């Protein structure tokens, strides 16, 4: 906020200038406060979602790690963490490999029906989740995939592919096709060209697409509620049933840990973005 106002600014404009920044500050507060407020609440010593007088007076007795302890020792939560990672990792692998190959095909100049194909491939992102979830519930029950890990992995992979297609296609927009021709003319065959030339260049797009696919699965609640059962419970599944049935601050502890995870993800995506821009020579 160091920008100096020009000397000819009228007092009214000066007031407006600062008022505007205060308003924006309040909006940023609205964005961030609800996320930050759960951090201290998760250290609550009593099983409520509220600040106790002890907490407000910074009395150490008002704080405890019992909800974190509960999270790390409770078998329900441990199963949920395991399932979340298993399901997210496998669905990300499927989504990333299929999505990257499809994006390569879609960005070729010759591809027919491009708009229509693109619309179909990103439809899992457009269709309301509740409709996808109900459809998958009926269909997967019929072919005995409902309530299996495989079913949930396939469902999450389908939901994750649009993100991979979009990010990889975006990377390929700036991709110089003459590089492929150059590699070919120098004697590299298709496979060598792909792994030595194409992959390193689109890798940031692939990785950020994979991160999107991972977070989509990791964060997904609606489809897992319908396609999964207790055996496939993920962290969001467990949180949802926790909020519905017995609210305990363990949920806040989990939420705090998830915020940490998202900060990590955000940082890695930002670093990837910068790398892409550097490689493409875009000025930041």
């Amino acid at each position: 906020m160091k920008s100096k106002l020009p000397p000819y600014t009228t007092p009214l404009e000066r007031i407006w200038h600062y008022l505007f920044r205060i308003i924006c500050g309040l909006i940023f507060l609205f964005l961030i406060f609800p996320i930050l407020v759960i951090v201290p609440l998760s250290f609550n010593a009593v099983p409520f979602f509220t600040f106790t007088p002890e907490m407000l007076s910074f009395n150490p007795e008002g704080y405890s790690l019992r909800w974190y302890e509960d999270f790390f020792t409770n078998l329900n939560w441990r199963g949920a963490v395991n399932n979340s990672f298993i399901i997210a990792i496998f669905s990300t692998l499927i989504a990333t490999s299929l999505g990257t190959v499809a994006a390569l095909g879609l960005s070729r100049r010759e591809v027919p029906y491009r708009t229509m194909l693109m619309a179909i491939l990103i439809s899992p992102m457009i269709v309301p989740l509740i409709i996808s979830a109900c459809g998958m519930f009926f269909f997967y029950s019929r072919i005995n995939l409902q309530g299996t890990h495989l079913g949930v992995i396939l469902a999450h992979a389908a939901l994750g592919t649009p993100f991979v297609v979009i990010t990889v296609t975006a990377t390929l927009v700036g991709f110089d096709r003459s590089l492929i021709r150059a590699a070919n003319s120098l004697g590299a065959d298709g496979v060598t060209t792909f792994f030595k030339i194409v992959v390193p260049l689109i890798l940031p797009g692939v990785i950020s697409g994979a991160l999107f696919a991972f977070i989509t699965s990791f964060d997904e609640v609606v489809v897992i509620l319908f396609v999964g059962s207790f055996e496939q419970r993920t962290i969001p599944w467990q949180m949802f049933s926790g909020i519905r049935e017995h609210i305990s601050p363990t949920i806040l502890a989990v939420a705090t840990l998830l915020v940490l995870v998202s900060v990590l993800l955000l940082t890695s995506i930002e670093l990837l973005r910068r790398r892409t821009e550097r490689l493409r020579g875009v000025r930041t």
Partner: protein
Amino acid sequence: MANSAVHPDQPLTTADGVPLKTALSRALRRDKMKSLALVAPLFIFLGLTFLVPIGDMLWRGVEDPIVSTYLPKTVEQLKQWDATSGELPDESTYEALVEDVKAGAPEKLITRVGKRLNYELPGMNSLFRKSQRRIPKFDEGPYKEAVIKVDKKWGQLETWQVIKTFSPNLTAGYFWAAIDLQVTPAGDLQLQDEKSRIYLKLFWRTLYLSGLITLMTLILGYPVAYLLATLPLKTSNLLLMLVLLPFWTSLLVRTTSWIAMLQREGVLNDIMVALNIIENENRLAMIHNATGTVVAMTHILLPFMILPLYSVMKTIPKSYMRAAVSLGAHPFSAFFKVYAPNTIPGIGAGGILVFILAIGYYITPALVGGTSGTFISNFIAYHVSVSLNWGLAAALGIILLGLVLVLYLLYDRIVGVDNMKLG
């Protein structure tokens, strides 16, 4: 383009004498096939795991096989019966009914017909349960009086009319139900009873609350996007993190934190009581109602408004405003006459995006919406997993999907799906 070394002095053929045009189109076709082959695996995968399941579910909204499957002979006989004649069907129809009930007796199949018809005419469920118990004991005819003795409803025109009306395999009945109309036993359309007219109101509420949420995100998002676009890049990148952090935080985490904030014993009520704004007894009910849904969803969807607005505003040269001011415009009128019109694509993109996401929302309304803040999605889920009226769920789903697709086409027109950016 293989083998197509062309020299100006040669006729237009390739090295092996194939006309150039043929060779080119062949090469082009090969390239097309190659690109399609790359897209194919994902296409097939999505088809099997996503598109077919959705089509399968939506089909339930128009298919209605129950009556004709479990009462085949009765339906056949009823074809000759004139529902408007004012007379009951003849003996042969009753005989067919008895045969159908007997055929389905071991697995109590006939009760499924009762369950289905009960959506259309209350009382059918118990009628078919009773008939399922008593009719199989009949040995020989005439059946007409015996059947009417089981329940006098078998002697009422209405019962037969409803069976006849719902005997076709395809039905629009679920759609009528989804917009608060019903088909009378005689086959006419009429409004549902006052009490059961809920879906039009629900659609209206979903659209109204989604619109309100979109407006709120616009009001809150516009100034922030403007600030981000006008600040030096280093500062704005830092502030952008504050927008992206909520964007990347789990949806359930954000919903949970709003529960902690808004509930009766929650943070906001505590603060207001501590500041003596409200009395301890009059804590505000800000959650499990429409307010809760609007506040939480505005927060959750705000980044989806800020990001497209920001990316549009970034491209507007700062010199536009300076030029307008230097030509004598008041800064405010320069803003509204010069700057704001340039941001309309961003408003359109963000607005439609938020609106599309909002009308399909399920989790947040389910957790903080109570009864007055629930959306159409919540009723679809209810009919799928609680009331088991899958046809109605599918019909509601088709209407919702239709709305979303129209908005999506609009979005594609304004922004172009290819230009969609993430994060």
